[in-house]
């Protein structure tokens, strides 16, 4: 694990769990989905990140300080979530530290929850969820479950680093990406993603409350979305729209 990033465990951490990631990205899909899972599955904080690479901030909850990057869990699920946009300069060590920590707890699978932006999103009634995987066996598994595969293209951001590091270290990993708004918080997309998560894993959550609270979430998430947009621009996130030129 990187010396610049420490993961401090505060509770007993389950071994052999599925580890999810919900980081600020397009439509805040991952963060909204993560936040819903924490409340629906009653996940509790088991660890947090400590690093000088993170912005100099703490998040206050009920008057007590918390790291902006925390890991929640129960007996079979771990969920890493960030309440602040991670800058392009620090995203590598942050993601590597989380993945290496997950490997040390023998996670059986890592799943990144995020979005894939589409134009005219407000006119789309049925949102699709796509997947990419760290190896061909996992890719076949998601295909067999009926999930559409993201066949060609670029991936930018936390999920890109997760996929690459997991592939390099032989950790089974999936990136789940729901169609969403680029720069507006998208609770509907988060709900679609959670439905697909339930399809490919044992992690199941009722999304009705998430959809009911859609407007409240959109209003609350404006500031995180705004700052995330700033970091996405530094990461050249729009490269995901580019048509790739493959050298085979």
């Amino acid at each position, binding site marked *: 694990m990187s010396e610049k990033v420490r993961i401090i465990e505060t509770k007993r951490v389950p071994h052999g769990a599925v580890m999810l990631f919900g980081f600020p990205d397009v439509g805040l899909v991952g963060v909204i989905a993560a936040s819903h899972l924490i409340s629906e599955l009653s996940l509790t904080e088991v660890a947090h990140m400590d690093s000088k690479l993170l912005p100099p901030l703490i998040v206050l909850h009920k008057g007590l300080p918390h790291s902006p990057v925390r890991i929640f869990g129960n007996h079979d699920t771990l969920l890493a979530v960030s309440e602040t946009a991670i800058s392009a300069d620090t995203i590598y060590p942050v993601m590597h530290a989380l993945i290496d920590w997950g490997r040390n707890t023998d996670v059986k699978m890592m799943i990144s929850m995020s979005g894939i932006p589409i134009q005219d*999103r*407000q006119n789309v009634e049925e949102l699709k969820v796509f997947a990419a995987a760290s190896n061909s066996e996992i890719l076949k598994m998601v295909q067999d479950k009926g999930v559409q595969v993201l066949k060609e293209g670029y991936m930018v951001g936390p999920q890109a680093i997760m996929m690459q590091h997991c592939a390099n270290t032989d950790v089974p990993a999936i990136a789940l990406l729901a169609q969403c708004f680029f*720069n507006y918080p998208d609770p509907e997309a988060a709900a679609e993603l959670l439905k697909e998560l339930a399809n490919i894993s044992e992690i199941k959550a009722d999304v009705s409350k998430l959809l009911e609270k859609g407007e409240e979430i*959109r209003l*609350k998430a*404006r500031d995180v979305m705004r*700052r995330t947009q700033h970091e996405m621009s530094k990461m050249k996130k729009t490269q995901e729209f580019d048509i790739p030129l493959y050298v085979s």
Partner: protein
Amino acid sequence: MSSKKRRSIFEIIDEYFENLSEWAERFREELIEKPTWNNRTCTIEPLRNIMVTPTEVIITVDLPYAEENEIRVEPIGSDLIEISAKMKRKIRFDEFGMTQYEGEFKTLQCQTRIPVPVYTDKIEANFKKGILEIHLPRKHREEIPIE
């Protein structure tokens, strides 16, 4: 005797672009480093986006809690649009769990500058899934003939 080395044109260009990129970064920081609410005017600033196509400028605004028949789109001069929407209910700071501020918000409001000339008298707008979409046809200047 001065030891100042004469700079090449490339160094001057590099410095120009470095300064330009620093300025752009500062400008972006200034835009982002301000609260998105104003408790004097009881307004919240919504997220918005602007896209320029060959024929029109499309502005979208995310308006959670907006009352559809209380949305106002108003041109201010030739290159500025003001958007305001009354919310279905008042939102208080304590609903966000914030007890350090007091106040309540009734309106979503923002202004957006339009980067190219448009016909502000030909605005069309629609509201779907909480997103306001404004279309402004572009004014095209005389085209340059290609020989």
